Structure formats: C-alpha cells, structure tokens
C-alpha cells in the first residue's frame, strides 16, 4: 500500500489501528536496522523502535506531508537514537565509565551479535567516530541512501555530508590498516 493511502486511512478513526499496523509492518525493518547499527544492542534497539512508533502514533495527525512519510519516520528514529546515546553519555559521565567503551563491550558481549572478524573490526572502527558522523556513514555505506535523502533527514547540506562521509571513510580505513 502506498504511503498516501496509509495516511488517509490512519486519519479515519475507525481504520486507525489497522492502517497503523500496515505502516509499522512496512517500515519496522528499515527503522530497526537504522537504530540497531547505532546502539548495537538488540534490547536497546527494540526499546527505541517502540518509542519511535509510539511517537508516530501520537503525532501522525500533525504530520502535514511537507516531507515524505519515509523521511519523517527516519527523522524521528534518528532523533531518538541520538537522544539515547546522549543519555548514555551523561549516565557514564556520572558513573565515570566511558560510553564508547560501553558500546564496544556490547559489541563483544551482547547476544544476537555474531560476525566475521573483519565485520567486527569494521564495527569497532565505526565506534571510534562521533555519533553524527557514524550515522551519516551508516546511511550512506550500509543503506545506500542518496546524499539528498540523508540531507533531508539530518537537516544538513549535501556538501557537508559528502565531507563528513569522506572523512569517516579515511578514519575507518586508517583504523583497519593498523596491526
């Protein structure tokens, strides 16, 4: 079902639940993987995914279609992800632990993670990047998104994104060349 049709049905109170479920089924996987790549742990990704869809449920009536539904959902998910990582950082500031190390630890210890050595090294290299740069890298490299699409989601310029991605690739390749 097209987004336009889903939105029309969601606005009809008698069809809201049913059509919202269609929306969830349509976008859950892409949004989950977008979140999961940022927070690493499955349980954290699951919590954030729920929060994202609850926000969408509560605010769908206010969505004025200035952007596409896909961009709007991605924006909410990105915002929730960055908020989560900031909260973790603040928490680790109080507990004197390192938020980056915690993500590394999750990569090593969390269930539902099992990759080849080279893929794990790539993930570890990604954790060296600042959150926003990692986000841009993930959308470009793993999700093959166009810069124009990423620019709409992150509210940044295409030029800035290209520079950020280029720098991220350099840093990652440098890290991978160590040893």
């Amino acid at each position, binding site marked *: 079902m097209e987004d336009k049709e889903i939105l029309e049905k969601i606005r009809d109170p008698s069809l809201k*639940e049913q059509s*919202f*479920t269609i929306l*969830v*089924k349509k976008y*859950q*996987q892409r949004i*989950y*993987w977008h979140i*999961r*790549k940022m927070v*690493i742990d*499955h349980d954290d990704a*699951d919590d954030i*995914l*729920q929060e994202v*869809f*609850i926000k969408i*449920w509560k605010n769908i009536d206010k969505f004025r279609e200035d952007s596409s539904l896909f961009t709007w959902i991605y924006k909410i998910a990105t915002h929730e992800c960055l*908020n989560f990582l900031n*909260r973790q950082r*603040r928490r680790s500031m109080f507990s004197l632990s390192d938020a980056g190390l915690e993500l590394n630890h999750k990569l090593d210890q969390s269930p*539902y*993670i*099992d*990759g*080849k050595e*080279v*893929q*794990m090294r*790539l*993930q570890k290299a990604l954790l060296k990047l600042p959150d926003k740069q990692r986000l841009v890298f993930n959308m470009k*490299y*793993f999700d093959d998104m166009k810069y124009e699409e990423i620019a709409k989601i992150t509210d940044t310029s295409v030029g800035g994104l290209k520079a950020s991605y280029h720098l991220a*690739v350099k840093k*990652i*390749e440098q890290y*991978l*060349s160590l040893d």
Partner: protein
Amino acid sequence: MKLDDINKEKPFQIPDQYFEEFPDRLMDRIRNESDKDRGRLISLPVMLKMAVAASILALITFGIFQINFEGRSPDQILADVPTESLIAYLEESEMSVDDLIETIDMGLITQEDPLTESDILPEDEIDEEMIEEIMIDYELEFQL
C-alpha cells in the same frame, strides 16, 4: 585495508519471529498507554483544585505576615527575641548538621568560587526528558 574489500554484511542478528511479533507487541503497549492517559485526564481537575487551594493558603499566610511585621526586616524581628529563647529553640529543634552547613555562607569560607551545579550540568543540557529520566530513576513519578 580498503572498505571496498569488506562485505557489507552486518554482524547483528535478531531473535526468531521478532518482526512478526513486533506489531502486536507495539499495539498492546499503545492500548495500555492510552488507558493510562485516560486515567490521568480524569484526575487532572483534582490536581487543579489542590493547586488553587495551595495558592490561596500561600496568599493568606503572606498577607498575615505583612500585616504583623510590615516595615521590619527579619533581622529586626529576630533582634527582639531573647538570645536564651533562640538557643533553647535551636536545641529543641531537629536541625541536623547538614541543615546547619546549608545555612553557612560558603563565600565566607573560601575565596575561590565553589563549583556550581551549572559547571557539571550545563543548563542547556537539562531537558524535560532528562528530568523525567532522573525522576524515574529515583521513583519519584507523579502519583496522580
């Protein structure tokens, strides 16, 4: 090593049936939260009544204080109380060491600026979400 040499496969997995079960789990949570919200809406007027009552009480207290002590500073009012009575009051009251320390002007003890709350927690970093999170951490959620 170049990025192009690496397979784009991710090392992440998910529990069996995760995406099949997610929509139902989500809708259950949404229904539960809607029920809770309805409960909150019913009790809002009670909160409003309490807030109005507290405001009136505060205004009356302030009015009485103004009538009795108009034109006099707290220092002047305290000066009229005999020293023995003050000592007796402090001995009788349950003021802890912490309470006493709080009344001390830190500027008199050290010339250096003490570390303020905003030094470790800048105001621009305090948002509603953070306050909510702290409240949940300390189990101080509103019992409406």
